[in-house]
């Protein structure tokens, strides 16, 4: 048994142990915790496409929605309180992931000869098409949204999926086989000249990322117990892109931290907005969390243009300079 | 015309230049030679302002230019043909040449100057309307030099102009460098791997090694120097 797998098992074990005590966690913080987990899955998986393979996708929420709806339909068709809840849930998640992966294949295949912004608009368009379809298909609730009567997503399942996602993405990339993703990002022409099938890698990245986005969607659906096509619009995709870029493209630990930060931030700003010591004059300004959020986002990008956790950003330099001056 | 004093440049943690001094007298051709990574390109980049110097002074025509923005330096008549050509791939050959004349206001004179350049590089005339990105490597090099000449510089800095150029044309280019130096009175600072030729046409030479000037002398003398002979002239 070697190191990576040990880590995987240990983290799954940790998730299981913690999940035994999840009842003791304040439900609000628990909600945030699960959301963090879902966002990590989304960010890390998109990072495979955008960060490691260099393909700009604006449709990740689309894959997420496919997973959410597919898994919800499984749960609904099996019946709410059937026995073997966990097994059904695993099945539902897998169906969600696989449907999303299939969608990833469908989009990835034909559209990957497009580059840069053209690819971005096609992925965005694709996600919008999915959204419109969900919005109009009565069987999945159309514009009413879809309620899922069970609440199966818990700490264990979420962080099991987080661990799996990180494992797959990190160890896939960190192998000779996985260097292919990076070469495609750096220079496609040179990659092909070195015998690397760029298209295969791009499609693979799309499919794997879509699979995990689908899982994330399934977790989301079975946690919030209500899904609505509006929740998977392009702004949601943009949120995920922000996580990836803030974390530093192709920097998985950075992306994880960015996911945590960007999930907590709006809630933190919510708390700030209801802080009673706030002067009345600026209260309305603070209460619109998105104003502060956007300013923070801009500030972060200015201070850490390479992402939060790479060296060489202005903040690092500034800190270093500060130290130098002190010394 | 150009005096570089105690120039220091670093890229992050790497120090590329450890305080070098170079003089380029008016109307002369000066050559800078050195091994790969010695800092030749860095020197030129620092002079033209695209890389910031950490320390030192660069005086052009009696004026300190070390803190000026690149476009201002160009405006003073100092033109840099960078390594890697940096032609505008999305523009046509003609537009590239006109870009060279961006800061000039004497539009009437453009025609004559273009003819002069087409005379040196007939290939460019053939490819006038082609988009510059599809030119062959050598054609791009010609375009880069032609574009620089269009700015009517008083001082021209060339970074490896013979790189990737066919032998016959290398000779032509060096002849033309001498020609513009003589006829148009353009001062030239030349960086070259082809040290033989470069020292042949220049009056003065500097040898750069890992960011320091290790030798400087009249070109004729440098060509006889055993160390230079061994390392840079191919024995």
């Amino acid at each position: 048994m070697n190191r990576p797998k040990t880590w995987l098992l240990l983290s799954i074990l940790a998730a299981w142990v913690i999940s035994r005590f999840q009842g003791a966690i304040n439900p609000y913080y628990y909600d945030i915790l699960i959301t963090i987990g879902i966002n990590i899955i989304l960010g890390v998986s998109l990072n495979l496409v955008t960060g490691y393979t260099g393909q700009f996708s604006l449709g990740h929420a689309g894959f997420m929605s496919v997973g959410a709806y597919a898994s919800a339909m499984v749960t609904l068709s099996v019946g709410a309180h059937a026995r073997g809840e966990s097994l059904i849930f695993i099945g539902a998640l897998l169906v969600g992931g696989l449907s999303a992966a299939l969608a990833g294949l469908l989009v990835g295949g034909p559209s990957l000869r497009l580059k840069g912004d053209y690819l971005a608009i096609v992925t965005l368009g694709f996600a919008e098409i999915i959204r419109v379809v969900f919005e109009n298909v009565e069987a999945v609730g159309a514009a009413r949204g879809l309620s899922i009567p069970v609440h199966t997503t818990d700490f264990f399942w979420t962080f099991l999926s987080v661990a799996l996602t990180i494992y797959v993405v990190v160890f896939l990339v960190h192998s000779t086989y996985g260097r292919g993703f990076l070469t495609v990002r750096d220079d496609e022409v040179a990659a092909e000249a070195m015998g690397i099938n760029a298209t295969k890698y791009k499609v693979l990245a799309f499919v794997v990322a879509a699979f995990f986005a689908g899982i994330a969607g399934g977790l989301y659906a079975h946690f919030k117990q209500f899904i609505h096509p509006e929740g998977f619009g392009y702004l949601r995709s943009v949120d995920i892109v922000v996580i990836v870029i803030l974390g530093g493209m192709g920097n998985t630990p950075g992306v994880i931290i960015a996911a945590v930060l960007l999930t907590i931030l709006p809630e933190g700003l919510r708390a700030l907005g209801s802080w009673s010591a706030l002067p009345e004059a600026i209260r309305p300004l603070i209460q619109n969390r998105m104003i502060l959020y956007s300013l923070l986002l801009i500030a972060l990008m200015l201070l850490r243009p390479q992402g939060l956790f790479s060296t060489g950003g202005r903040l690092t330099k500034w800190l270093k300079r500060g130290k130098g001056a002190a010394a | 015309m150009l005096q570089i004093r105690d120039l220091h440049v670093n890229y992050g943690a790497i120090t590329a230049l450890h305080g070098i001094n170079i003089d380029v007298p008016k109307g002369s051709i000066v050559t800078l030679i050195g091994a790969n990574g010695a800092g030749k390109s860095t020197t030129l980049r620092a002079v033209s302002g695209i890389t910031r110097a950490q320390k030192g002074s660069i005086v052009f025509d009696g004026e300190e230019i070390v803190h000026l923005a690149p476009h201002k330096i160009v405006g003073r008549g100092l033109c840099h043909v960078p390594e890697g050509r940096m032609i505008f791939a999305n523009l046509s050959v003609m537009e590239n040449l006109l870009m060279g004349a961006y800061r000039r206001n004497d539009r009437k004179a453009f025609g004559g100057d273009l003819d002069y350049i087409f005379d040196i590089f007939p290939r460019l005339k053939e490819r006038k309307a082609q988009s510059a990105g599809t030119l062959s490597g050598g054609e791009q090099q010609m375009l880069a030099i032609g574009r620089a000449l269009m700015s009517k510089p008083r001082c021209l800095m060339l970074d490896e102009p013979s790189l990737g150029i066919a032998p016959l044309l290398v000779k032509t280019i060096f002849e033309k460098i001498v020609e513009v130096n003589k006829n148009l009175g353009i001062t030239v600072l030349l960086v070259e791997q082809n040290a033989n030729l470069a020292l042949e046409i220049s009056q003065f030479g500097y040898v750069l090694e890992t960011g320091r000037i290790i030798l400087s002398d009249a070109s004729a003398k440098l060509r006889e120097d055993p160390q230079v002979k061994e390392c840079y002239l191919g024995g």
Partner: protein
Amino acid sequence: MIQFLQQLINGLALGSIYALIALGYTMVYGVLKFINFAHGDIYMVGAFVGLYVTPWVWKVIPPGQDPSKFNWNTTAGGLVVMLISMVVCAVLGILIERLVYRPLRNRPRLTVLITAIGVSIFLENFGQYLFGADPKSFPDILPDRTIDIGDLSIFMNQIVVFVTTIVLLVALRYIVMKTRMGTAMRALSYNTTAASLMGINNDVIIAFTFGLGSALAAAAGILNAINYPSIDPLMGILPGIKAFVAAVLGGIGNLPGAVVGGLLLGVLETMVVGYISPMYRDAIAFAALIFILLFRPNGLFGKIEKEKV
């Protein structure tokens, strides 16, 4: 047949609004190679500036009494409002560039993109804070007339938008392709270092590009508000996306492409609504876009520039 023609007119009118926004989008993209996500929000600001300056302008140039009759005063006032709004937005655009984009100039494009998204969220939400969330009624700053040809109805405003789009296209194309400034813009779009070695002051050109792009957005905002006189702080989101689509459809960075893309999108959407189902309007528009891109990966007018290896 009449109905079809009417739908075609409707489509062209809608499309010319998309085209107008897409023009600014594509121009900024063409030079800086980055999607200015905040473009749609500048468009919103343009409309609001129009809303707030109109009473002042009207104080100086009182408009005609009957808004449905042509009136020189009204027209002149409308133009002044538009100009003011364009100038204000140009300044805003330059300011944004100076404050947030310039420090990131040599950074990866996606970094700048996120910053642009930040700016976009900021403008939307600060707009809601400043202007209030509910829609505002936009005054009739141009004479509002309907021209009936048989059973066909064409509105003055639609013609104004269409003509403005075409005029701006021609003017922009002239600036970009024929003037020194324009060539500098294109040179800079390829390589900023080389451009500065040509003596181009990159800062000036980029600021100019942003100013011009923002002014175009403001013009679009005003013209759109005249056509659809209900404006709100989030009004830029949807047209922003549509204009992005239009620009890509035509080949992003390509000015005529943006106009053709916009018109095409407008007509397509209108026809889908009129003859198929409004429910699938966006889906079909995107499907068409994807379809076209599969055959022309660089949009309708984008040059298929194979990289020289």
